[in-house]
């Protein structure tokens, strides 16, 4: 052991480079693993506390995409009557309607009920919070997500104009400007990219529209609009919370077989899983790249070990003269490699912790991914560290074996 430590110290320049290479590659691999895990976790918790999402008959992933991620268009609406049927279902505790279709400078306008801000959960049951202002109280009030506020530099009280449809160059609802009533706290979910208005407001600003174009002559003021009671006719999706979780399958089946209108009810967790499955290619590619870096690190170590074989020939012959067996020679070489990789993996782990510590505030605000910092590796990470170490030790058997074979041929003398 002392021999190995001294020997490594003697070759500390090459040894340290080797340790550093392994450390960096290990840090990268574990980092990617960690990020992958956290990203997946975050993704799967984009919506929580919602038992079912209901929309017109479509593929679950499509329904998920437009209702949660505000991507793509709903193919069909659902009627207000259907919504009221859902609310009336004995198992339903609450149901929040959504109406999509308009946009503001690239961000989706989401018509919803005030309940949304209280009921919606993300992550591990986290509630939405306002960084400024409050939920809408007037008809033409709007609440905006953190990203919208940041990118467009909006403050509470600002007035904004909503575009009809999702392409901003199209017609504007400029006769009815909205006032920013509240700005939501950052969540790291699609909530940050939404512009929220009440369902009534959606109805109100579309009063004089037919098939996407404005009919002339709507000069009513906000006060006049407020006086009118707008009842939504059609909405796009509904988020449902149940009184008892086990009833979810029953309610889902009931909604899927609803006869008055073809509906699709999905469990957000299941649909998110499906969607993540589609994205797993990227995830796997990232992991493969990190694994390649580890392989490069190990090959580097191998080349260092092989390069020292020649200069250590005399040393090995000496050890044999002193009474070391060929297995001892093998052991010294393997032991040194094991120490190198051991230092490398431990250092890699520490590097990762340092990097995470430094990057955590940045990553969590930019990506909304919460990276957890911990001192001890998780069991899975221990597994990774251990397997890297074992793989390194097994490939180090080759130089060790070469050294042993040479020392058998050389005996106690080295012919130079």
């Amino acid at each position, binding site marked *: 052991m002392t021999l190995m430590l001294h020997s490594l110290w*003697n070759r500390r320049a090459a040894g340290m480079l080797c340790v550093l290479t392994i450390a960096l590659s290990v840090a990268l691999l574990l980092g990617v693993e960690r990020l992958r895990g956290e990203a997946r976790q975050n993704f799967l918790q984009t919506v929580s506390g919602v038992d079912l999402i209901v929309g017109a008959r479509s593929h679950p992933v499509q329904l998920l995409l437009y209702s949660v991620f505000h991507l793509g268009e709903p193919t069909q609406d659902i009627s207000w009557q259907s919504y009221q049927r859902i609310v009336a279902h004995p198992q339903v505790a609450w149901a929040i309607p959504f109406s999509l279709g308009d946009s503001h400078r690239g961000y989706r306008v989401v018509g919803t009920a005030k309940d949304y801000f209280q009921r919606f959960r993300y992550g591990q049951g986290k509630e939405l919070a306002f960084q400024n202002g409050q939920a809408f109280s007037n008809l033409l009030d709007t609440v905006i997500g953190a990203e919208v506020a940041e990118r467009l530099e909006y403050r509470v009280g600002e007035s904004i104009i909503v575009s009809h449809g999702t392409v901003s160059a199209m017609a504007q609802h400029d006769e009815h400007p909205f006032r920013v009533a509240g700005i939501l706290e950052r969540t790291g979910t699609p909530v940050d990219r939404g512009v929220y208005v009440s369902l009534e407001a959606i109805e109100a600003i579309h009063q004089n529209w037919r098939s996407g174009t404005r009919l002339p002559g709507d000069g009513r003021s906000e006060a006049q609009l407020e006086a009118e009671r707008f009842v939504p006719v059609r909405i796009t999706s509904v988020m449902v919370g149940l009184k008892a979780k086990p009833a979810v399958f029953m309610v889902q089946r009931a909604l899927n077989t609803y006869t008055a209108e073809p509906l699709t009810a999905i469990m957000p967790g299941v649909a998110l899983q499906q969607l993540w499955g589609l994205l797993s290619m990227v995830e796997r590619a990232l992991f493969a790249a990190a694994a390649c870096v580890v392989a490069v690190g190990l090959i580097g170590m191998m080349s260092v070990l092989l390069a020292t074989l020649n200069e250590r020939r005399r040393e090995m012959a000496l050890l044999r003269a002193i*009474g070391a067996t060929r297995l001892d020679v093998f052991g010294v070489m393997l032991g040194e490699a094991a120490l190198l990789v051991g230092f490398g993996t431990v250092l890699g782990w520490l590097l990762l912790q340092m990097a995470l510590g430094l990057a955590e505030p940045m990553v969590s605000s930019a990506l909304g991914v919460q990276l957890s910092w911990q001192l001890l590796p998780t069991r899975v990470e221990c597994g990774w560290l251990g397997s890297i170490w074992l793989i390194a030790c097994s490939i180090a058997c080759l130089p060790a074996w070469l050294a042993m074979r040479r020392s058998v041929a050389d005996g106690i003398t080295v012919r130079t």
Partner: protein
Amino acid sequence: MAPAISVRDARFAWPGQDELIAIGALEIRRTERVALYGPSGCGKSTLLNLLAGVHQPQQGSIRIAGAEISALSPSARDRLRGDHIGVVFQQLNLIPYLGALENVILPCRYSRLRSIRATALATSVRAAATELLGRLGLEPDFWRKPAMTLSVGQQQRVAVARALIGAPDLLLADEPTSALDPESRDRFMTLLFSEATRCGAAVVLVSHDPEVTRRFPRQIAFSELMVRGTPS
């Protein structure tokens, strides 16, 4: 007591080559001093490997401290060597990055017998090593320094200390003085003899320097050792 080494009709050839070693009989008693001399390239290093029990003869017998080496497994032969033989080479005898003292102690890490004997002679292995280094004239300042920083003369003395720690039965020396100047050579030989006597080891030295070999009571020419033709 069995002789330190006894060789009978030993023949050795590298695979696919002519016979290199053919020794009719050679016996080296305990505490005997024997010088072997001969031109270079006559199979000297092969002979050393045979006497040290690294290689084994294709025919005949070699016994080290009474043990027949061909009857032993490779690792048992290695242990036998560690237990009974100390080796001093021409140069580069030491593990360069270890201190002088660590180098001297090294054989006791591989051989339990040597470790036990060293502890019996002094109070501990370390004490035995410092005693040896002291007697061989290496100042304590140098004990902890890496071997590669020592002069050649110092290195050779450390090598003798390492070869003799734990009182082995045989000291094998391969041209140990060829890197030394005449004055240090003579002092070195005197020290080597007195330490070998002290621990009761036989000395087998290979050299082509008559100034060194003439100090030995028994001198054997390499050519005399070899027999040609079929073994008796």
